[in-house]
């Protein structure tokens, strides 16, 4: 959400809608046992869908079961997580490296499931980091972030990471245009110096590995959201852009002057062809590429420089601009691939464009004018229809697969259901409050599962017990199986649930990993057998090669450490059973605990600064003897002669 004045009007409207709806709807629902039974998943039973929610400013991703709304997991992505050592252990620290150095936080916005034939396939989920532009890939067999790539020449990685039909690419459009390459210029030279880069990240179809394949150097607009085409339109990606005025100050006023902003339609197949023909220029661009490896249980961070850049002016047919009323946010492609719904946050209607009409308009050259050589198509020539009077602040649309679109209305806090083809509004329902994105399971896919729409709300004032100035954000689940939408459930979320996607559990559950096999553990500091534990001094570095299994550490008595040493605890969990991690915590450690999965090795660094005896213990309740899972390490003075000694297994 962009600016303050939407916020103020939002609050006024919230107040009004609260007034209108609070009495009636609340009392209705509290008596609605039918709604309760529809979201009741009996203890011990599993939900039908995995919901993958962004944590927004938490920088993480959260996993909820749907329809119950039960929180299943927080997956650390861009932010350090002391709970399990993410970004604190030596193995995970490289995941948070960037060209700016180690960054322990980001703002995570849009989860995107990997696709096969434009349907979620359950292999990976991608998510963008907005602030220091990055895209992360999470493996859905381990629910762990296994790759993060930084996006150079970009700033505010918002229209990201949306993926093409078969996950050939995930795209990343810059929200803020910046000088490219970035340089010291007066901000008032925006129009001349600032550019908007759209990045195309190629995804290896077997292992998911990402590669920054090319960028398209676009005019200096703000690129907000994106979707790829499907079926006939599968070779295209659509980006919404605002600030076509190219204002550089007070955007809340100055970027809303033009009647029409744009949707940029990009032919990525053609881009590949131009790339092959050598039309791209090699340009600088520093970035980091961080990859996790399950065999060594560690990440590596590689510094990279340089990117191939395509200029639309050199590449006819690569980009067309579709005029779109006032500051479009969502530009969402229906399941057939024919219609593109543009939600202009400040517009009084939702225009829906036709892909086939767009093709025709291109052939017949129905151009109104151009921006920096990029043709602007005639609005009427590409328009399929307009949804009239949908509400205030249309933001994002998803589809149910039964011929209807559902658009979130930020300002009027409601979801509006409209019919594809007739463009008439057929139903509307309030949300509590200020809905941003919405989500239908498979709602961006060729074959949506439908059933539910989830509202992702920014404000919950008066909905829950108050908790001081900061209140939770929320999600609301509505039944969309009938003609009328029906509110079933309201649940608080972790961070800001900016956007979410959902996938049927059958596509994920059978592949869920239970353990890491000890025999595959290739960590250079692994200890695969209790009899091989050791403590090794290398100058002032001491390496403790330790094992854990219910319920003891080996060694659990260590002496000969000195003040000023740097102690690496290389801990291998010898368990080979599901759901038996061990934790490791040592008094005075200035980082976090380590939480080590079965078969895995993780390393925590500890710098003893005082002499004495220091206990360490297991922090994850692992058995009845968990409380006995402990040990001692003795720290002597820097000049002491105490030799390294430790106990070991047989």
């Amino acid at each position, binding site marked *: 959400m962009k600016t303050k004045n939407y916020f103020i009007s939002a609050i006024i409207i919230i107040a009004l809608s609260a007034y209108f709806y609070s009495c009636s709807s609340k009392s209705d629902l509290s008596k609605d046992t039918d709604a309760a039974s529809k979201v009741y998943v009996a203890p011990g039973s599993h939900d039908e869908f995995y919901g993958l929610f962004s944590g927004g400013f938490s920088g993480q991703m959260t996993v909820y079961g749907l329809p119950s709304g039960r929180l299943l997991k927080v997956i650390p992505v861009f932010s350090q997580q002391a709970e399990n050592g993410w970004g604190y252990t030596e193995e995970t620290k490289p995941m948070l490296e960037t060209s700016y150095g180690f960054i322990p936080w980001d703002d995570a916005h849009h989860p995107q499931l990997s696709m096969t034939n434009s349907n979620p396939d359950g292999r990976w989920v991608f998510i963008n980091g907005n602030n220091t532009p990055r895209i992360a890939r999470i493996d859905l067999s381990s629910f762990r972030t296994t790759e993060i790539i930084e996006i150079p020449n970009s700033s505010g990685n918002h229209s990201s990471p949306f993926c093409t039909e078969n996950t050939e690419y995930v795209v990343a459009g810059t929200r803020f245009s910046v000088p490219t390459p970035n340089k010291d210029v007066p901000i008032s030279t925006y129009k001349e110096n600032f550019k908007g880069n759209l990045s195309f990240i190629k995804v290896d179809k077997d292992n998911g590995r990402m590669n920054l394949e090319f960028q398209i150097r676009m005019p200096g607009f703000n690129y907000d959201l994106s979707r790829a085409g499907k079926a006939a339109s599968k070779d295209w990606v659509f980006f919404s852009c605002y600030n076509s005025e190219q204002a550089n100050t007070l955007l809340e006023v100055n970027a809303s002057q033009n009647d029409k902003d744009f949707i940029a339609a990009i032919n990525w197949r053609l881009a590949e062809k131009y790339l092959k023909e050598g039309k791209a220029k090699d340009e600088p661009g520093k970035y980091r590429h961080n990859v996790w490896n399950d065999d060594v249980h560690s990440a590596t961070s590689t510094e990279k420089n340089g990117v191939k850049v395509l200029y639309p002016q050199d590449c006819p047919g690569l980009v067309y601009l579709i005029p779109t009323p006032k500051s479009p946010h969502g530009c969402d492609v229906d399941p057939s691939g024919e219609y593109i719904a543009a939600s202009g946050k400040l517009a009084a209607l939702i225009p829906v464009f036709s892909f086939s009409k767009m093709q025709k308009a291109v052939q017949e050259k129905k151009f109104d004018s151009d921006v920096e050589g990029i043709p602007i198509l005639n609005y009427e020539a590409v328009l399929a229809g307009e949804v009239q009077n949908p509400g205030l602040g249309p933001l994002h649309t998803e589809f149910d697969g039964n011929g209807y679109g559902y658009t979130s209305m930020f300002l009027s806090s409601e979801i509006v259901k409209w019919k594809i083809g007739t463009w008439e509004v057929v139903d509307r329902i309030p949300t509590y409050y200020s809905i941003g994105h919405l989500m239908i399971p498979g709602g961006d896919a060729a074959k949506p599962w439908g059933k539910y729409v989830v509202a992702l709300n920014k404000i919950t004032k008066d909905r829950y017990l108050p908790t001081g100035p900061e209140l939770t954000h929320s999600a609301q689940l509505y039944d969309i199986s009938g003609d009328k939408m029906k509110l079933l459930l309201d649940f608080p979320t972790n961070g800001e649930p900016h956007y979410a996607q959902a996938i049927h559990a059958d596509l994920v559950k059978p592949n869920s990993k*239970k*353990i890491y*096999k*000890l*025999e595959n553990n290739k960590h250079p500091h692994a200890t*695969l*057998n*209790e*009899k091989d534990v050791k403590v090794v001094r290398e100058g002032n570095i001491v390496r403790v090669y330790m*094992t854990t*299994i*219910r*319920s*003891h550490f*080996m060694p659990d008595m260590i002496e000969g450490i000195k003040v000023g040493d740097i102690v690496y605890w290389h801990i291998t969990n*010898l*368990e*080979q*059973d*599901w759901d*038996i991690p061990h934790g490791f915590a040592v008094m005075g450690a200035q980082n976090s605990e380590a939480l080590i999965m079965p078969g895995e090795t993780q390393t925590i660094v500890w710098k003893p600064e005082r002499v004495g005896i220091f206990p360490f213990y297991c922090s994850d309740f692992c*058995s*009845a*003897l968990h409380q006995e899972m402990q040990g001692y390490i003795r720290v002597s003075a820097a000049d002491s002669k105490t030799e390294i000694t430790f106990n070991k*297994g*047989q």
Partner: protein
Amino acid sequence: MNKHSILILLVLVLLIQSCGGGDEKTTPQENVDKGVGPIKTVFVGNIDASMVANGSKIFQAKCTACHKVDEKYIGPKLRGVTQRRSPEWIMNMIMNPEQMIKENEAAKKLFAEFMTPMANQNIPQDEARALLEYLRSLEN
């Protein structure tokens, strides 16, 4: 019973017939506590040296954090276990310990004594068989 175990049984039956008894013996069928789990019948004959070698390797990797051969450690000492328990019980204990320590009287007693649950180390059937052979070899 899955296809796999039917096949194994068939092969076993064929083997018994072809050997015609000889010096091999099957475990007595009655009054034996076989425990609970996937293993219903195990055929044990003369000690198979290559299986013992394999079993010893697996034991070193997956069991020594809790078991010693001649001493009580986190779990019971294991020399002599094949005299206390049937081959099926031992393999079920290795492959299915959670259910064993909940439902089998003998295993329940052990758990009450040792307090740490015998770990499920995700041992497949052929490896459990090799481990059994290794434990048998300790008796000689």
